[in-house]
């Protein structure tokens, strides 16, 4: 599998040498630049290797944080599954969201734009979860190649959180080696969503 994967990547490196200005959304996994602010393109797409002001972590680093003395707040911002508008009545629809055990699921909190009251609630929830300690480790994630967690991390960095960890491989990078737990949506987040409708 690796041999298959590395070739297109090498081709992409070669292609990128000819095309320094990356298009948006990026059409290659290399040289995806960090936008100066929040990313406004589609959520699905290649993401940058970095997030200024935050630490980029892999699954092992997330495990180390969880096992460490200062337990991180795990925030999953993956979108909930969209039930097709024309999905037949009575047909089985039973979405499930496996994630990192102990994570708090705030679906689509990395959306841009995010309604001001939703953004305020996002900060409020994170503040509650961190006990108001902006130096508390926070891990944000969603899926692999998903900008939602990048944006959520960016929001926290800009809000002054100093131990933001971005886990770009997300649920996919976690479930390969680790236990998952099916999450239900954070109740406060869900309630506010319902009020908005």
């Amino acid at each position, binding site marked *: 599998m690796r041999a298959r994967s590395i070739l297109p990547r090498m081709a992409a490196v070669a292609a990128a040498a000819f095309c320094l200005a990356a298009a948006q959304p990026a059409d290659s996994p290399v040289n995806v630049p960090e936008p100066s602010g929040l990313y406004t393109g589609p959520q699905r797409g290649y993401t940058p290797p970095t997030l200024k002001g935050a630490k980029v972590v892999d699954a092992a680093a997330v*495990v180390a944080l969880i096992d460490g003395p200062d337990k991180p707040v795990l925030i999953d911002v993956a979108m909930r599954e969209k039930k*097709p*508008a024309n999905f037949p009545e009575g047909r089985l629809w039973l979405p499930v969201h496996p994630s990192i055990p102990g994570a708090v699921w705030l679906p689509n909190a990395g959306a841009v734009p995010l309604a001001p009251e939703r953004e305020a609630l996002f900060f409020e929830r994170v503040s509650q979860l961190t006990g108001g300690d902006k130096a508390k480790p926070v891990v944000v994630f969603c899926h*692999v190649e998903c900008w939602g967690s990048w944006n959520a991390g960016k929001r926290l960095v800009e809000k002054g959180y100093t131990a933001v960890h971005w886990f770009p491989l997300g649920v996919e990078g976690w479930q390969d080696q680790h236990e998952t737990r099916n999450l239900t949506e954070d109740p406060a987040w869900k309630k506010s969503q319902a009020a908005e409708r």
Partner: protein
Amino acid sequence: MRPTFALALGLALSTAALAGVPAAYAAGASDTDQERAARWQEIAKSIFGDRTIAPTDTLVKLEAPKRAEDAALVPITLTMPDRDKIKAVSLIIDDNPAPYAAKFEFGPAADTSELKLRVRVNNYTDMHAVVETTDGKLFEAKQFVKASGGCSAPMGMSDEEAMKGMGDMRMKFADAKPGKPVDATLMIRHPNFSGMQMNQVTREYTPARYIDKLTVSAGDQTIFTLTGDISIASNPVINFGFKPDGKPIQVAASDNQGGHWTRSFTAPSPTN
């Protein structure tokens, strides 16, 4: 995008392996397994009610890649050698949002020994094949598959392009031998939109449009009737067996938006 994911994951895995993963988070521990078992109970109850489903390793075998290369196109093989005992088979992808992927009901012209199709897989998941025998009993086989994101993966082309030639069909036949069933492959051009795929330009969801009924017959004898769902991959390809009697193979397909297509194929005649 997928090759990058595979690479990134590969790297992540090797790092994890080197670092030594604490046992509490290692795969295969009981909590996740229990959660999967509970989910299967819930799904089985909603599909089959209170009927007992016994495990089997002979009536049906379910084969799928342990790690799929493409979550939107995962090949599945169902092997059911006891033709005379099999009435129907259901394929359930437990952790897909719409878990009930397909049900095949077999007719008198069917040979069930091998049936193949391609599906979408949304999460690392158990898959179940449940056969109903002619005496009305249910038996299940299970397989775990590693793939994710298959239901919402965009097709990589515009919706118009994906729908071009919708309903076109082709069929390939293996060589016919006297007195033996014939293997056939049916290919239908159809995007089978899941309704969960977002158009990356407009950021709107393409409405679900999928083949919900497919009947294949040899003359007036049914081979199978398929009840399909959004978990069947785009451009469905189905391999099946049938008992030839020289009559043409008739295919009738319809989708959930009122599309209907029929086609007749000349079946091969046995050569000596």
